[in-house]
């Protein structure tokens, strides 16, 4: 699945998890994230994407199996030390907070006693919000809100970002903008990113995709390998055709379903 030389940042080893005793939500899941990887975690609603990200960030503890961060058990880290390595952004469909953008981005400094390299101003500049530092969160567009929190994670300085549906409820323009920003961060800062998404078309734009169903992984690899008609039908319970163009691009065709 991965080349042996690629250093692993986060490894989930045969983990299981359930909220209630009856139904396991995650079953013997194994996955790993290497340095500089940009992974789309694709699956239908309720497939376990969010739970996987929460397990990977340590918010939830697996009932079985191990999670390793830089080869050390995730829960052996002190909270503040872990926060310098992993940053998790929850779904924020209805986030409200009474803070200014500068205050919010500055919260990325909380795990530190001595401020790290990235200043609040340079993080704001990087996400293109330098003119909005004094604005309140409520005054921003959906795309700007997401970028605010991306800037917070930049200040936090974590090498791994786990993002839960950062594109949800965004206009297509902001979706493209945000993905472009994340790709820039990956390229310039070598930050690894795993983001949950449920838009198959968007997943086709990633270099690496994990397809998820019922708390297990159906396939990992390039979109060509993973996003096949058969696997998508399995994951989403719907018949679709992936149309591959001669120029290498591809898109989803809904066929009789639409």
């Amino acid at each position: 699945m991965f080349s042996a030389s690629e250093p692993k940042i986060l490894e989930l080893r045969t983990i299981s998890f359930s909220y209630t005793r009856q139904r396991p939500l995650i079953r013997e899941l194994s996955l790993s994230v290497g340095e500089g990887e940009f992974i789309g975690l694709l699956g239908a609603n309720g497939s376990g994407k969010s739970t996987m990200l929460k397990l990977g960030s340590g918010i939830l503890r697996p009932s079985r199996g191990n999670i390793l961060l830089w080869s050390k058990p995730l829960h052996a880290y002190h909270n503040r030390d872990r926060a310098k390595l992993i940053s998790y952004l929850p779904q924020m469909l209805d986030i409200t907070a009474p803070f200014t953008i500068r205050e919010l981005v500055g919260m990325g400094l909380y795990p530190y006693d001595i401020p790290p390299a990235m200043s609040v101003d340079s993080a704001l500049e990087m996400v293109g919000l330098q003119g909005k530092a004094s604005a309140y969160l409520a005054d921003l567009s959906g795309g700007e809100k997401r970028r605010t929190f991306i800037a917070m994670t930049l200040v936090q300085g974590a090498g791994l970002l786990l993002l839960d549906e950062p594109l949800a409820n965004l206009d297509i323009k902001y979706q493209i903008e945000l993905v472009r920003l994340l790709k820039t961060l990956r390229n310039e800062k070598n930050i690894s990113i795993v983001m949950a998404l449920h838009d198959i078309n968007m997943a086709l734009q990633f270099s690496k995709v994990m397809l998820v169903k019922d708390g297990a992984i159906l396939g990992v690899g390039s979109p060509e390998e993973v996003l096949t008609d058969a696997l998508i039908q399995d994951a989403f319970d719907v018949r679709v055709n992936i149309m591959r163009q001669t120029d290498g691009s591809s898109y989803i065709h809904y066929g009789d379903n639409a």
Partner: protein
Amino acid sequence: MRSMKLKIVFIVCIPVLAFGLSLVAGPKMINPFSADDISREILFSIRAPRSLVALLMGMALGASGAVLQGILKNPLADPYILGISSGASLAAALGIMAGAVFLGTFTIPLLAFIGALITGSIVGIMGWKRGGLWPERLLLAGVGLSFLFSALLMLFMSISNDEGLRKAMLWIFGDLSMSEWSKIPYGVIFVGIGVLMSLSRAKALNALILGDEFAHSLGFSPHKERFILFVAVGLLTAASVSLGGMIGFIGLLVPHIIRFFIGSDSRLLIPCSALIGGALLCVADIISKSVLPPMELPAGIVTAIIGSPYFLYLLRRKNVLSI
């Protein structure tokens, strides 16, 4: 940045002025620089402890309101609405009626602290569902418990002996006119520790306002932080209830005023709410002493008359559910 510093200097000056004024003003104006013996005695034995109690109690109310509104992400939270104050009062009143004195002047505040923690825990358990605190459930549980505790208090008072009843009545309806120097040591200790504890967790409180998952990601343990802040609120509530009985609305009102001027960063909001809470209660006390001399209005009535219209105005505001 400079205007923020100016605002903070302003906020620090207000309680100093209010405190000074509450020493000087009253049914009889006293000039501390040319006071005769009687005036000096009034100043030292009556007004100074009373002004200090007002300042400390207002600080406790302001800071606890700022912390609770943050923990619960609800602009209507304060120790009264959540029933924590009535729990503290019930425990303290029971102690007074039983004549408990095992720890000297610290007995009643410690009982109030235990009452506050127990009530807070019950409210927390009632408001906890599916791994999270539900603000509406918390508020309803708090209101429910308040009624229950008030009824219990009445019940115990109606079956208590005359001496215990008289003392408890005086205390419950007690206002700042009962202030004396013996209240100051525990007031300073409880309010001091409560405010410092809250301040030391101010960053965590900011993160909790964003949500438990954000707080975790920023390196905090949400449950642990909430517990520490809750203990701090318990100390502050115990102090305010023991110092002057029930005085409402400062905890609710003051943090909103502060948010309007300096924003919501808890590192500033908590100390500024404490300072302005102290100042407001000093001012309320001046009004209560001076409006209808020689009669005194309880300061609680004055703060309620100022606070209630603001509370109603808040309810009418659209963003009332975001702090």
